[in-house]
């Protein structure tokens, strides 16, 4: 019983850390974008203000059960990903579920939420939402290919499919996987562009084209939960990348530096790129990123 309570406490602490960090990154994103475009931009804590505003609003309408529960599905994915990914190495603060799932489990639990939210978006009956969902799912097929190529390369090179196993490899050899399997890293980072859905891959939300797509009919408490889920998921994804390729982190400070450095890659790329069409985006992922993924597998087989 005590262990269960401790687990829940650990999960809540992890969640709060992820929420704060993810929200801050979102705010910094807006700030950096503004500065690049020579605007002043909102303060870095703007996302907290937005979240507070959304949560304090009264929601007047919903479009049925799936629409009502869509954000909850999304939250399941974010929190489960966060719990499976080891937040800090050599630390008992955030034990969570690290040793009870592996990379393939992670890949699949990451699709649970988007599918649930897609059902919610579908029930609203707004055609823009459904178009956004089909685009999102199509693009997922695109970026999962290089992402899985990279992961499979890691799995066969180090004979483990568990995240903690890959972290142990890095701790043992002292080299980050980013350097010992560079092609896998490149492919994975290119796949990260698709996961973040920033420009040029912002075809799902597609401002001014799809009227923000799947979340078109969402507001108030629903949008609040979705926004928090997005922030938590951002942090979870970045932490996963840090664990896999950048040797993990011993304390929160290093973790934040590493995750932010990673976060800057899709962010800065988005600032100089116009939007792709869906089939262009899919083919982009099946081009160079997949080529690097295949190189990674070759490297894993040969060395």
């Amino acid at each position, binding site marked *: 019983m005590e262990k269960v309570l401790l687990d829940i406490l650990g999960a809540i602490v992890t969640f709060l850390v992820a929420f704060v960090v993810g929200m801050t990154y979102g705010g910094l994103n807006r700030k950096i974008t503004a500065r690049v475009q020579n605007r002043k931009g909102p303060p870095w804590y703007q996302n907290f203000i937005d979240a507070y505003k959304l949560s304090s609003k009264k929601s007047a309408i919903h479009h049925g059960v799936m629409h009502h529960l869509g*954000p*909850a599905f999304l939250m399941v994915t974010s929190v489960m990903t966060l719990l499976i990914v080891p937040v800090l190495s050599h630390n008992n603060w955030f034990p969570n579920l690290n040793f009870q799932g592996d990379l393939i489990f992670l890949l699949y639990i990451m*699709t649970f939420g988007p599918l649930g939210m897609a059902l919610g978006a579908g*029930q609203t009956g707004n055609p823009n939402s459904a178009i956004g969902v089909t685009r999102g799912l*199509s693009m997922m097929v695109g970026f999962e290919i290089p992402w899985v190529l990279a992961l499979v390369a890691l799995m066969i090179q180090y004979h483990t499919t568990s995240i903690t196993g890959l972290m142990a490899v890095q701790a043992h050899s002292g080299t980050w996987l980013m350097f010992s399997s560079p092609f896998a890293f490149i492919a994975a980072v290119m796949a990260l562009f698709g996961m973040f859905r920033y420009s040029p891959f912002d075809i799902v939300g597609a401002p001014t084209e799809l009227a923000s797509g799947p979340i078109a009919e969402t507001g108030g408490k629903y949008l609040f939960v979705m926004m928090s889920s997005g922030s938590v998921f951002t942090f979870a994804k970045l932490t996963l990348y840090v664990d896999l390729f950048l040797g993990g982190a011993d304390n929160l400070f290093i973790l934040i530096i590493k995750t932010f450095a990673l976060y800057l890659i899709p962010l800065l790329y988005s600032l100089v790129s116009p939007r792709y069409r*869906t089939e262009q985006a899919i083919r982009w992922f099946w081009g160079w990123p997949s080529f690097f993924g295949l190189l990674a597998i070759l490297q894993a087989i040969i060395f």
Partner: protein
Amino acid sequence: MEMIHIIFLIFLGGAVLTYFSGKISKVLQDIFFLASVLVPAYLFFAYVGAGREATLSLGGITLIWGVNHFSWLFSLIVLGLGSMAAIYAIGYMKGKKRKGYFYFNFILSIMAMMGILLSIDLISFFIFWEIMTWSSYLVTIYNGHDIQRIGIKYFVFSAIGAYAMLMAIVIVHHLTGSFLMSSMINFYPNMSLSMQIWIPVMFLLAFGVKAAMMPLHVWAPDAYSNAPMAYTSIFSGALSKMGIYGMVIVLVTMINQIPQGFWFREVIAWLGGITAAIGTLWAIKQDDAKKLLAYSSVAQLGYIITGIAIGTELGMLAGLFLAVMHALFKGTLFMVTGAIEKQTGTTNFNEVTGLIRKMPWTFIAALLSIIALAGIPPLGGFVGKWMLYESLITSNHYLLVIVIFFSSTAAFLYCYKFLFGFFLGQEEKEWAHVKEAPAVMVVPMLIMAVMMFVLGTFPGIILKPINSGLMDLGFVDSFKHLWESSVILNVWGNHVVLQPILYWIIGIFVFFMIFLTWKGFKTTRYVSTKDISSSGEVPADDENLTFSVGFMQPFMRAVAPAMRRQIDKYYNGIADGLESLFEFIRRIYTGNGQTYTIYVIVFVVIVLLFKNILF
């Protein structure tokens, strides 16, 4: 008289009784039908265990039937799914014509499948195989649409497979002097190399047709979608598994025994992978739910074939676990489609939409089976997918794992298309009258949905029979080596513990569900799907906002080059070539007496002219 005899007698007698009792009373017919499926199922699981045998002498040949753990596993699929589909069929067939014909063939199919599983000699295996083909053919043409194209296609492929198998059986009898499977297997290492290759190839041809393996799959989409849905759920769920059953036996007992078997397995595994990828792409393209599910069945069987062709312990476990799961979720999905067809009269996504509030229980069954199909935890499909990937990676099939992963991710597209097309989207007035399907149809779907949930958390329930089945085929005991009741692990020792994960998922979901519902419970009200933001305007009542035509168009554009070639066209080319050959032959054999007279005269003239040279 053994219990196995009694079971077959009940099947046969029940089929005949059901057929004729329709003349007296419809209710009596339904009762007879249910009894002749459920009673043998009960008798089988209650009284027939592994190791039981029964014989029947027929015209000098002794037919031997028996049960081992492996066939018991498949009996679970056949009789379990068969019973559910039978209950469902009562509701589905209500008010339809030619019920007797349908019920008769339904029972015969189940009997034939049980016969195939229980056969120990090749003669009864072949007989039951033919009964299965015939009965499924007759149900396929039940609707009367397109009999020429669909029925003949199915039958030609089945016939090619069956005659290949018959040839193999005859050769085996010539070589060993016995029709027993065990003597064939024992003699196999002593055969010449060409026989060692040809006999499995001929058997695999027959099994590959039933399992809809590329390039023998072209009959499947048409046949699956044309049969009544109550039958398609066992057609795709159980009948196609007979091909898998045969394949496993051939692969394990024959191909694994020879050194050339490695290439054999590689080819079959790749065929399975390609089947999965192509089947998925075509499923995404379909606008009809029946066709979509039919192509999806082809794709899912591709995973199963890949799993069993890999041939490692984990691969076998994965393939057979997926086989059980596929029977559950695809059976349910076809039932869902049938329920919608029954209630609305169409299964086209472009016509029917927004049924979620009218058919909530059907939606729940569909949602759970879709989650299982997509392989998302915590439902059972994930366990099978996980084991399949791990077995592919640990057995060095790196490119194959990408192909399988691609098709598995692309499967989300048609999963969403299925759910959105039927249940979500705009609610239209045209379908305002639709009501939930009768309980007799909904309950079997929900039972199977619950089964998927249970198997996803405690896969040990079904992995244990699979394990004993594989041990009967000569595998080492994988119990406590690759899985425990709710833990699955690979040979590297990495594992997933399903039970705590399930609790966490439920916990998180319930927490946020309560949060969303609790907050502002009184102020939040339901509004219809017309009450949406549409460029700042309120859409009028008659405005059509339904989005279903060209649903996955961007994706189809991206993969268009892969879909330009269709295997169907090549077959049609062969068929056209043959037809012109026959046409030419028909010109010679005109059937006209005068023409034949001319032939005779010409022949005589030639003989007379060249008699000096010839004689």
